[in-house]
């Protein structure tokens, strides 16, 4: 990394003050004494939580923020400790991170890469954040990850599902706990085969932007490998609200499965429209017509209401899992907020703990040391079973859930039920897999 030596230190500089151990943001600059960007020198350390607070994903952002607050509480030794108690690593003591009390700042990504970067920059440059986390779309994750790489802080991705985040656009300073489109496809394929057989004609509706394409590509590859045929793949505009003109032709296309590569509002609307058109009751090619939504979330299930019944998809995590980590987390979260956490919340909570733990184990906040501690790290007890943070691409490998909309939910928290937990072996891929090729982690950047 090129060091900036613009000029001599300003004459006004008061060495005594600078040395007094202030937690000042010392950004990107070589002229400070810090060894890396935003080195915490006082009794506190600042984390930046960058989540969508406005726009269609605001509710997801709010849930992420709840998880972050909970994680900070637990790190600082307040509350019950949550998943810290079940976490396989015991480095965290509940006394902050390396004895420094954890503080946090928040910002609004607006689900726009520009706004997200501005918000992250404000955290890094003004508030002295040493780690940025959160977000609920891949465009934002890639943009902020790139920024953190340049600035020399760690990025712990929130909800981002595109292959690119740890593929083409992977960065040494960035880490993803959430699963990706390839894994969704790999987990879904065997279940789809079991449920719907190998002789199926699939029709894809795909959101016309990067994430949609990578997901469609992944699902098509996985389903074709088991014998399905792809009748058509139609790209739909991101801004589309009424999908009727895309759904209507499906009926007469000879397809007997509809795959909706949509997320958020797009998915709620396209699914609602598909059910309105009576696709679920149709018989095509002598089989029941089926709809698949590869990436699920609780909030989307809530938005789609009854239309979600019987629809199969995949999730990173679900609060109904039975392991100790999940139970501890759901208890802590549920008692604090009155409802169970979403998968977005879980990934954000886990990322925060993982970061803090890595700092403890590395014995330093230096992003390079932290990165080293995270890369190749194996852990358990954070709700997903045994997990590996792979060194090659900073992607977590863990079991993936295949879920289905419940037919008769007992309450609004039981809208989805777990069909199967696809073991990690099935979703693991080679780092050089063509869908992930072209990227380069590069060198870790400590900033200063």
């Amino acid at each position, binding site marked *: 990394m090129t060091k900036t030596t613009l000029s001599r230190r300003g004459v006004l500089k008061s060495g005594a003050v600078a040395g007094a151990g202030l937690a000042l943001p010392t950004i990107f600059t070589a002229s400070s004494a810090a060894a890396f960007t935003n080195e915490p020198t006082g009794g506190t350390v600042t984390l930046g939580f960058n989540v969508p607070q406005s*726009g*269609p*994903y*605001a*509710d997801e952002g*709010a849930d992420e923020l709840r998880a972050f607050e909970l994680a900070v509480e637990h790190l600082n030794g307040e509350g019950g400790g949550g998943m810290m108690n079940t976490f396989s690593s015991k480095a965290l003591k509940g006394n902050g991170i390396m004895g420094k009390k954890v503080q946090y700042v928040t910002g609004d990504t607006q689900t726009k890469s520009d706004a997200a970067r501005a918000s992250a920059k404000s955290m890094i440059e003004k508030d002295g954040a040493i780690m940025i986390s959160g977000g609920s779309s891949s465009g934002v994750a890639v943009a902020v990850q790139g920024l953190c790489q340049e600035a020399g802080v760690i990025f712990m991705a929130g909800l981002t599902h595109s292959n690119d985040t740890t593929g083409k656009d992977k960065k040494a300073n960035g880490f993803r706990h959430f699963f990706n489109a390839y894994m969704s496809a790999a987990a879904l394929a065997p279940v789809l085969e079991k449920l719907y057989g190998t002789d199926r004609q699939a029709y894809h509706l795909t959101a*016309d932007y990067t994430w949609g394409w990578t997901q469609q590509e992944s699902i098509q590859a996985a389903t074709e490998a088991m014998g399905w045929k792809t009748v*058509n793949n*139609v*790209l*739909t*505009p991101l*801004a589309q*609200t*009424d999908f*009727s*003109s*895309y759904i*209507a*032709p499906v*009926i*007469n296309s000879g397809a007997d499965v509809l795959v909706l590569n949509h997320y958020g*509002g797009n998915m*709620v*609307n396209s699914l*609602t*429209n598909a059910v*309105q*058109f*009576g696709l679920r*009751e*149709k018989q095509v090619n002598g089989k029941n017509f089926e709809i698949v939504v590869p990436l699920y979330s609780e*909030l989307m299930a*809530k*938005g*789609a*209401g*009854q*239309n979600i019944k019987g629809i199969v998809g995949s999730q990173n995590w679900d*609060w*109904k899992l039975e392991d100790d980590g999940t139970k501890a987390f*759901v*208890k802590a979260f*549920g*008692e604090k907020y009155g*409802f*169970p956490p979403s998968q977005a919340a879980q990934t954000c909570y886990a990322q925060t703990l993982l970061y803090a733990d890595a700092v403890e184990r590395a014995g330093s906040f230096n992003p390079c040391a932290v990165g080293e501690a995270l890369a190749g790290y194996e852990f358990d007890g954070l709700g997903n079973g045994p997990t590996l943070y792979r060194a090659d691409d900073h992607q977590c490998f863990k079991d993936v859930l295949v879920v289905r909309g419940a037919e008769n939910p*007992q*309450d609004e*928290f039981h809208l989805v039920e777990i069909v199967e937990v696809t073991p990690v072996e099935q979703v693991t891929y080679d780092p050089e897999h063509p869908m992930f090729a072209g990227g380069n982690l590069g060198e870790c950047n400590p900033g200063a």
Partner: protein
Amino acid sequence: MDAIILQILNGLDKGSAYALIALGLTLIFGTLGVVNFAHGALFMIGAFCAVTLSKLFNLSFETLDPTKKDFLGNPLKVKTPYVQEWFGPDVGAWLIDWSVPLAILFSIPIMVAIGFVMERGLIKHFYKRPHADQILVTFGLAIVLQEIIKSNFGANPVPTPAPEVFRGSFDFGVLLGFDPNVIIYPYWRMVYFAFAAVIIGGVFAFLQFTTFGMVVRAGMADRATVGLLGINIDKRFTIMFGLAAAVAGLAGVMYAPINSPNYHMGMDFLVLSFVVVVVGGMGSLPGAVAAGFLLGILESFASMNEVKSVIPGIDQIIIYLVAIVILLARPRGLMGRKGVMED
């Protein structure tokens, strides 16, 4: 052929939503000369009237069911809607099921009241101000309204299904002599189209055949002269604003089952409805309706695979492309009057 019929149906359906919103927008514009960027928000509030009524009917008391557990392992609280308790399970269930159509009645007074308050409280002071100021203040209002909805209902869409009998779809193709399952169309969308036709017809009839409507039309043509006749045109214009708000609100109520309402649906429709109004010609009611249907149908055609494979991405931009072409070919849109909004 069947694909084209299908897309025409889709287009009519989409077009009826555009036309309803554009109708109110152009009504306000034509009578008051105000560019109302909050009109999309009125549509959104209409949809949330349906959501609210459905939530009201679903207001429940809780009883503990010790046989089941909630997510924290405590006994499950089973919810029973009050309406089922008060009116018996059947009537209660019927009320809940029919909450969207019932919301029509519920929403009219609310929307008219909102319209009155908006006009008297805010819009009135902007008649003489530049259009840019009107745009900005109503845009500000739209943001405020949608944020209020967001803080009460969240950002996530709220499912608001149609009554049971209207779910599912109707096989049009058989009616027209095609094979079964070729042209099917959801019942509720047909209801929406019929509803829109009634509302549009109603508004036109009202303006055409009542003295009130005649005065308003005269006012649209020449406000000063009507004022000179000693007719209190301002009061009538307030009522027109209420009417326009009600039309937007009703469009929203009935739209709720088509797509789950969310707080920014108004903004999604806002730009589109402006394009519709301008393509139709500012201040022209038939123009707005015609443009609504035209753009709806063209949008549907553009999303056909056959079209998309020739021009990739055409469905992304069709509306804007058509708007540009029409405005270049016809300076004031399809049926615009001269001198309106050109300065």
